[in-house]
């Protein structure tokens, strides 16, 4: 059952990620990236990280991708404006990515990670446990990330404001 779920979710993830890269229209890329994020949230649930799955859907599919969708519509990019690179560069990109994949796979095969058993259902991923870790051991990074958000918000408003002439 778990294996079946893993294979179907992985196939959907990889297919939608490939659509993101290879489709010509930016709108289709955004929509298939949303599908990819939903399948990754499914993987999180399969790994018993339920709180993270919900947060992933809310933050990525709900906030980040809506931002992408708005920008694609605002810049009116859906007309087939994105000409692909020339053939030589495309082949070079494919060869470079393929060589990186082979290198990473070879180094992963040569590494031993020790014996990890498939996790039994636990409450480690529920909001109670993660929240306790977040507000005790990781309290300082949590507060600093709020400052990061504030500066990102100010930066985004200042950058996208129209300049006065």
């Amino acid at each position, binding site marked *: 059952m778990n294996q079946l779920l893993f294979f179907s979710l992985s196939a959907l993830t990889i297919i939608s990620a490939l659509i993101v*890269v290879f489709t010509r229209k930016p709108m289709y890329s955004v929509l298939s990236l949303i599908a990819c994020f939903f399948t990754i949230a499914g*993987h999180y649930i399969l790994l018993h990280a339920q709180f993270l799955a919900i947060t*992933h859907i809310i933050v990525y599919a709900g906030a980040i991708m809506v931002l992408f969708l708005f920008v694609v519509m605002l*810049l009116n*990019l859906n007309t087939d404006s994105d000409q*692909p690179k020339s053939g030589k560069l495309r082949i070079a990109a494919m060869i470079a990515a393929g060589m990186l994949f082979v290198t990473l796979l070879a180094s*992963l095969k040569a590494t031993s990670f020790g014996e990890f058993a498939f996790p039994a259902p636990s409450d*480690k991923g529920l909001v109670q446990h993660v929240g306790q870790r977040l507000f005790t051991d*990781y309290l300082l990074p949590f507060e600093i990330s709020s400052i990061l958000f504030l500066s990102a918000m100010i930066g*985004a408003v200042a950058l996208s404001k129209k300049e006065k002439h």
Partner: protein
Amino acid sequence: MEQTAQMVPLNWYLFLSTFLFCIGIMGVLFRRNAIIILMCIELMLNSVNLLLVAFSSYSGNSDGQVFVFFIMVVAAAEVAVGLALLISIFRNIGSTDIDVLNKLKW
């Protein structure tokens, strides 16, 4: 016994996230539209997130999940600033093609 035969090995998650990361790299090298390059960077961040969650869940330690939480925070901030930069570039140049933005190349 049947339950143990149905387990998902950790290696499969390693292969899946390596493959997703390489798809993201290929997209960055392959496409010319800066928005799609940002989306491919998001894809790479997500493959790393998936690997962190897999290791955290397999080792029974929830530190990895907290790290993923912080990566999501930084990714959200990065996307907001990056898209604001893209909009301002589009206003000045009228294009988000990275081949047009070659003033700083070499």
